[in-house]
């Protein structure tokens, strides 16, 4: 039996309003937190072992504990710039239960001594931003935001900041730049945002889902929360399953559930008569896994051990009717479009990878292009300010690596097709065919 913490009765009408949320016990976790000293709240977060749900999987409690002590302005940025292909759990959380996020942000601010909070939401989520705006207004009117919240010493302001359509702004330092009103270019790290972030002040940045977990953690206690899920991957996680499955959608699972059960039992598996060909375990940035990896438990460490990552928890399933070359091209096109252009390896590497894949599709490639593509990928990884370039190189590199025969076959077939179509016949590729 899966525990449902974040998604409990998510479709209840009016859950986005304060009255319904309070009737269901909302903001009780905040009252409990405010009756404790901030250090004790931080202890609960540390004890829960909850790891960041945005992609990197860094322990949230530790991130809060990195904030320096003192009375300077400290900031909390909720990263709601959910743009990773395949990811849509934050959208549903914000749309249907915005107060859960706001309550989590207030508690996290109390634990970290934060006095200014922002929600950076992607511009395309107009409906969700409107709902958040209304919810923030309600919370302020009820005294959950503002000065001396519920009679405590906590002052907190909360602003919903709408982005304007840039995937890169989901990267934490680019998000900070964008929030400061600049172009969303990533910054060099260190200094890390916990020391010098927004307006050069200490900043905590967490994902929507992570912050939405906080009320539940306070409610049940950190130690109790840590009992859910797998070792080192505590709690529940919302997975977004999409692609070639019969019931795409968000599912709240206990971490450590078998991947096959998520894809086949919850999401219904591929359409009848089709098999899983490969799957992205954590959004389009994660290296792809093959059907034999479906037996893996879905938690941070098991997926990492298999050479991929849990990332944002977005599973994209590709069935055997699809061509791996198409998927590689769609993936690379996305990152080419979204590269901010600051670092050359990413800007040029994504561009050339797309060109190479287009060449493969047009029948103008040779198997040598696959080696070049692989070398482009290895030259991007680790050489940029942020991980956008890596996020293209890892999945595309893994597809070329794991499906090399199919790529080679595709190149040959496409070449034959283009030769038949063109009036000038080319000579066969004798030299290069022998090379591989």
């Amino acid at each position: 039996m899966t525990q449902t913490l974040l998604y409990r009765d998510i479709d209840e009408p009016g859950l986005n309003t304060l009255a319904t949320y309070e009737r269901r016990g909302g903001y009780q976790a905040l009252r409990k937190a405010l009756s404790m000293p901030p250090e004790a709240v931080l202890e609960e977060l540390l004890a829960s072992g909850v790891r960041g749900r945005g992609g990197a999987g860094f322990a949230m409690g530790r991130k809060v504990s990195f904030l320096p002590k003192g009375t300077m302005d400290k900031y909390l940025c909720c990263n709601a710039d959910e743009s990773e292909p395949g990811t849509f759990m934050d959208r549903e959380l914000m749309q249907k239960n915005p107060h859960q996020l706001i309550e989590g942000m207030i508690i996290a601010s109390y634990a970290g001594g934060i006095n200014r909070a922002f929600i950076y939401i992607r511009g395309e989520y107009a409906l969700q931003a409107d709902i958040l705006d209304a919810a923030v207004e309600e919370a302020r009117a009820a005294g959950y935001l503002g000065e001396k919240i519920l009679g405590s010493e906590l002052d907190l302001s909360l602003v919903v900041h709408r982005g304007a359509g840039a995937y890169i702004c989901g990267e934490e330092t680019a998000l900070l730049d964008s929030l400061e009103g600049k172009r969303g270019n990533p910054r060099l790290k260190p200094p890390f945002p916990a020391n010098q972030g927004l307006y050069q002040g200490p900043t905590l940045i967490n994902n929507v889902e992570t912050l939405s977990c906080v009320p539940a953690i306070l409610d049940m206690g950190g130690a109790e929360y840590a009992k859910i899920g797998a070792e080192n991957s505590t709690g529940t996680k919302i997975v977004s399953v999409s692609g070639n499955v019969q019931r795409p959608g968000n599912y709240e699972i206990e971490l450590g559930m078998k991947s096959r059960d998520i894809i086949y039992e919850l999401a219904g598996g591929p359409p009848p008569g089709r098999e899983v060909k490969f799957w992205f375990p954590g959004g389009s940035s994660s290296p792809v896994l093959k059907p034999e990896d479906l037996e893996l438990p879905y938690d941070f460490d098991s997926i990492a051990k298999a050479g991929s990552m849990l990332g944002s928890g977005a599973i994209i399933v590709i069935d055997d009717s699809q061509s791996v070359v198409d998927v590689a091209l769609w993936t690379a096109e996305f990152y080419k479009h979204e590269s901010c252009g600051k670092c050359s390896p990413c800007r040029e590497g994504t561009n050339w990878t797309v060109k190479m894949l287009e060449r493969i599709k047009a029948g103008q490639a040779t198997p040598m292009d696959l080696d070049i593509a692989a070398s482009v990928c290895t030259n991007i990884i680790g050489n940029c300010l942020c991980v956008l370039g890596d996020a293209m190189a890892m999945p595309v590199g893994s597809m070329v690596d794991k499906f090399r025969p199919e790529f080679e076959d595709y190149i040959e077939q496409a070449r034959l097709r283009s030769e038949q179509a063109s009036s000038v016949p080319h000579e066969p590729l004798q030299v290069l065919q022998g090379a591989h």
Partner: protein
Amino acid sequence: MSTPPRIPDRRPHLHVGERMHGRAQEEVPQELYDLVPRFGNGSRVPGWDDAADLTKDPQQIPDPATTPVPEGLRADIEALMARYPDRRSAALPALATAQKVHGWTSPEAIRQVACVMRLTPGYLISVASFYDMFDTKTKRKHRIFVCTNISCSLNGGRELAARVKAQVGEDEEIEVRGFECLGACDIAPMASIDGVYVGPIDLDEVPEMIDQVRAGQPPLPAKQLRARLSTDPHANSQDFPAFDVLSVDGTPHAANPDAAQPVRDPASGTVGEMPGDMPGPSAPFEQAPDPPEGPEPKR
């Protein structure tokens, strides 16, 4: 003697006299042709792509006395600036507000925002050109973004985009664009129609959908994301009714993203309450509007 085996050329052969740069001479597409200002006879207006004159001073912060700004827009931007510890943070929302007033991020809109925010137009242009959602060219009345990212493409998103484009045809009021992931892979293949998420769209439903867009009606109400219930079998303890997209019940409801926002008349501009926060300290002006007259003070 046979010719040695060789790799086929990736590029088509160029004949003598053809243009080089690795590209065979092609017809210039009309939209590229139109980008360049031209005389009636088709020749380019000289100087349109001249490099910036580095000897000239950059454009200054617009003078409030000579830059008329609609009162409503000014009040909005000032309210936005007050929400942040640093007023420059309001650049994105201020540009979005100005875009709503002007219909697009026109040079005039940028000058007005620059005037109120006390920033140079160049700074705001650099920001506006970075983000996809600022239209630095005029836009059409309706916009359909069809998602062509992985999950949607796996479910026929590219065919949908082609079908929508074909259905819209030469309509001057509707813009159709393939778009990167819109964050709604559960309703793949999907489209965002004037900001409203709709999906999964069957190819047969495209004509109906386009007719609704043309008539200004909510597109495919039953398939809007807002009406979708959670798929998780463990989430709900009972059956809840789906949100009725066509009802207006006072909850934030965006049939049209612009309708949800306080839209202001550029001329009169009534000031609504901004969804703001407790005002922060007034931010210091980082740049003086004009350098002070007289000799530079000694440091």
